[in-house]
């Protein structure tokens, strides 16, 4: 077979991404059709910037999902094919077997793996970790920021000081510390995970209790059910046989998160939550002066009801925008971690690690490093544009 020309490469990549295009077109057609009924999400389709951002983000989300479903990926991202080391894009596979894709669309890296497949598989890692880690950071930030803003005083001073302390700590240094074997040995990352991941439980528990405590017959089963499930997930998440935190027996452990990923989670949450804390605290300070908060106080509502049901829903606008931006930061942070080889295994196809590997031969072979870099850039750009669009639209009538 002959090497592919650039036109053919692009066409083939385009065709390979067919599931993504179909999903994107479907999503946009449906959204635009019903945009007047969809609230803020619908309004997004009135802003060109927002639409472009949303399209970029959803492109990577769909690509990640379909990639994981094995619809897009052409080769095993970890498989090395002899003779393909550092080959330029469009090189045909020597001795391709029946049913095997005939080319390395974006060439091979220095370990003779398919760059295209690695980029697609890397998207799935980012699409999974970044939003979830950001969501955890938001839980921590909200659960601490609301009382700090609402109560003020000593509590506020203490928590704000703590937030400033964490923010003052050099991020990269912190990551290096967390992955150092000696530190992992002491169990500090595992304990930190235990501490940080308990916040969603606290958050949901207080949220439901403050809302339904007037109806104990409904509240108690609800809380037992929800907290039971969440608790089990929590314990499965933090507990690992053989690690420092081993609280539940192995047969009850639903899933195991590899230690490296857990460290990535912990560090991302730990670094992001102080900023979220500050935003939430500021919003709470502003919203607590509203009359509806006073109305809730004068009818004897508890402080947590006021914080979670009167203040938080009305702070959602800026928080949603910040959430989008923060997923972008987290994506970059993941890239940085991968680049330094922290947390994720060395053969991992995530974008940061791939860029780092490609970096070594950058002056000779550009193609292994460029695709993941462009992927990272376009996703973060998409998230920033999306946040811009959301901000603009939420301010308009």
């Amino acid at each position: 077979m002959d090497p592919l020309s650039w036109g053919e490469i692009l066409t083939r990549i385009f065709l390979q991404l067919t599931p993504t295009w179909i999903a994107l077109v479907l999503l946009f057609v449906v959204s635009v059709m019903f945009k007047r009924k969809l609230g803020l999400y619908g309004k997004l389709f009135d802003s060109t910037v927002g639409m472009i951002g949303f399209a970029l983000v959803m492109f990577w989300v769909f690509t990640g999902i379909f990639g994981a479903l094995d619809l897009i990926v052409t080769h095993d991202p970890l498989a090395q094919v002899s003779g393909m080391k550092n080959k330029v894009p469009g090189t045909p596979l020597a001795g391709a077997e029946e049913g095997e894709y005939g080319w390395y669309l974006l060439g091979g890296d220095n370990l003779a793996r398919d760059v295209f497949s690695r980029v697609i598989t890397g998207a799935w890692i980012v699409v999974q970790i970044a939003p979830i880690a950001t969501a955890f950071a938001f839980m921590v930030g909200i659960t601490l920021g609301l009382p700090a803003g609402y109560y003020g005083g000593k509590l506020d001073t203490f928590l704000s000081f703590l937030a400033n302390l964490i923010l003052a700590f050099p991020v990269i240094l912190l990551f290096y510390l967390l992955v150092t074997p000696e530190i992992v040995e002491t169990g500090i990352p595992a304990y930190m995970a235990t501490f940080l991941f308990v916040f969603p439980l606290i958050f949901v528990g207080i949220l439901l209790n403050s809302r339904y405590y007037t109806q104990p017959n409904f509240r108690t089963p609800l809380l037992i059910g929800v907290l039971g499930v969440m608790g089990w997930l929590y314990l499965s998440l933090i507990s690992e046989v053989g690690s420092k935190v081993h609280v539940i027996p192995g047969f009850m452990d639903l899933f195991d998160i590899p230690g490296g990923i857990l460290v990535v989670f912990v560090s991302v949450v730990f670094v992001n939550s102080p900023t979220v804390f500050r935003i939430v605290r500021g919003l709470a300070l502003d919203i607590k002066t509203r009359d509806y908060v006073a109305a809730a106080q004068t009818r004897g509502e508890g402080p947590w009801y006021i914080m979670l049901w009167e203040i938080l829903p009305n702070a959602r606008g800026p928080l949603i925008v910040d959430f989008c931006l923060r997923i972008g930061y987290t994506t970059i942070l993941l890239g940085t971690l991968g680049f330094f080889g922290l947390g994720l295994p060395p053969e991992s196809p995530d974008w940061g690690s791939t860029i780092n590997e490609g970096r070594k031969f950058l002056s000779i072979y550009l193609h292994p490093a460029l695709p993941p870099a462009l992927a990272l850039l376009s996703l973060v750009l998409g998230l920033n544009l999306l946040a811009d669009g959301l901000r603009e639209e939420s301010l308009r009538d």
Partner: protein
Amino acid sequence: MTKWDYDGPILEIDKLSISFFTRLREIPAVMDFSVVVQPGEAVGLVGESGCGKSTVALGVMQDLGVNGRVVGGSIKFKGRDLGAMSQEELRDIRGSEIAMIYQEPMASLNPAMKIGKQLMEVPMIHEGTPEKEAYQRALEVVTDVKLPDPKRILNSYPHQLSGGQQQRIVIAMALMSKPSLLILDEPTTALDVTVEAAVVDLVKDLGKKYGTSMLFISHNLGLVLETCDRICVMYSGEAVETGSIEDVFDKMQHPYTQALFRSIPLPGADKNARPLKAIPGNFPLPHERPPGCNFGPRCDYFVDGLCNKDQAIKMQDIPGNDRHRSRCLRINEIDWAAPMALEDTKTKGAIGDVVLKMDNLKKYYEVAANALFGGSGATKVVKANETLSFEARESETLAIVGESGCGKSTFAKVLMGLETATEGKILLDNHEIQDTPIEKRDTKTVADVQMVFQNPFDTLNPSMTVGRQIIRALEIFKVGKNEAERRERMLSLLDLVKLPREFADRMPRQLSGGQKQRVGIARAFAGDARIVVADEPVSALDVSVQAAVTDLLMEIQREHKTTLLFISHDLSIVRYLSDRVMVMYLGHVVELGTTEQVFSPPYHPYTEALLSAVPIADTSVEKEHIVLEGDIPSAMNPPPGCPFQTRCRWKSKVPGGLCEKEVPPVRQMADGHQVKCHLSDEEFNNMTPVIKIAAE
């Protein structure tokens, strides 16, 4: 630039139409609007919010933003069409020939620039005046707006001045270039009544002195009566009636103007014998205007087939009067002199037993004198409430009157249990509740004492449906056994406040201000409240809606025998609905008595000034002119002796400077009437009424 001379009218607006273009549709904000301002004349532009009065002002300034556009008609300033001018010519005119004063003084001043510099900029930019001359002019103008110590003022930053002083500076800035036309957009709305009176007075004097024409935009008919020569009433984007003050106030020729006057409390109104007549229905949204007459659906004189015929209604001249015009098809058919049809007069519920008793209530706050190193240093004490003593009875309305900083909100907080008292007692049904914070109060007590808030746009949680919010209050007050029962009760509460039941599933943003306020009232009555603290419940609403909400409160009070504590600074409405009045100043109760006692002499000097300050929209009322000097002192640093002594015009009548030394004792004047003042009985007896209604 050189100012050109022109003999004709200063401002001629002819058939002006302005529209705003949103992504959904074109929204006409002003339609077929004509007004003429002659030299030296003050024209008032009156209407409810959303009627387009501010848009007219922005149209004159040619500053409509990206979405707004003049779609018809012309605006001529001294004979020149403003619409045809280039941006540069307009920039020359703005600030030098046409000056504008906005509602919020702080927003009009640059906080990072000294007052003097900001003032001097005006002639320096527009006329190229040398700096020294500009400084002299600034000094002159600041003296003209009656600010004390002009040199010091010129050398200070905006935040160092009080709200009233800031607004005076804004006026001074507008006058710096001796403009021919001054546009005032609700210039006193953000100020306290007594300060407002002084600013209005100033504007009137300066208008005469400089010969400036004025376009005065306001929603307050009383204020327009006091300042303007002519008036133009707007409704839903159109001028509905225009004419001289006397013609429009006394011989109105449009149903909307008439309805407006009938819905505001005038000194003669009485809540039981002659209740206010609210305008039915709601103000139409700009894109949902009815065919034919915009006011048609809410008009008492509506005739089907005529008023709702899809045609433009023209302004008609009213013969015999001076440039008096009205936009009504039935001018000649309506008997304008006919007295208002009296709706069923209501009898007042008998006043029952004492429900609430305050005994020497005191609330002090400790503030760290040094914000940065607080805690260790000396603390300052702010005396928010001083020895408050009064009783409130069942189905009684007790009005609490005072300007900002007088301590009325602190009192409300202490009563509600959001704060605890420093000293003294609050007795609710003979139980002491002054030391029980709200978390420790039992459900019954909490449900009994409820509050209606001032700002309708802030009183409801924007992200929860109306029904949900009321049901939540029911849950908290333990009303109803299950969700279905509570929902039923919530719907009946909506009935009580006369809102359609469909509103239960609406979000607050879909409701108008008046409707939101009704929901707020429904929520307060969820647990059958016996004492309701209403904190300026109608002051943020439009005039036509105020009457309806006030009446609703009164009606619920009659049915439920509620004790209403009505906090307000609007003495017209207080006089209309309250049984007893308590006047507060800097944390002190300066006067307390029945409404008749407080509104007739002898007065406390502060009550007297307040009464004089409130604008009354009635040409037959004569007021004694009392203008208070200066501003309300800060509660952080109250004057020694009598709190009012810094602004009191009677101070010289008290021998020996007693006012500056001692807090006056509470004096019992007549049965239940008390005044905190050093004046002698003789002086009190010689006081004359502030408000006189001329014999008709």
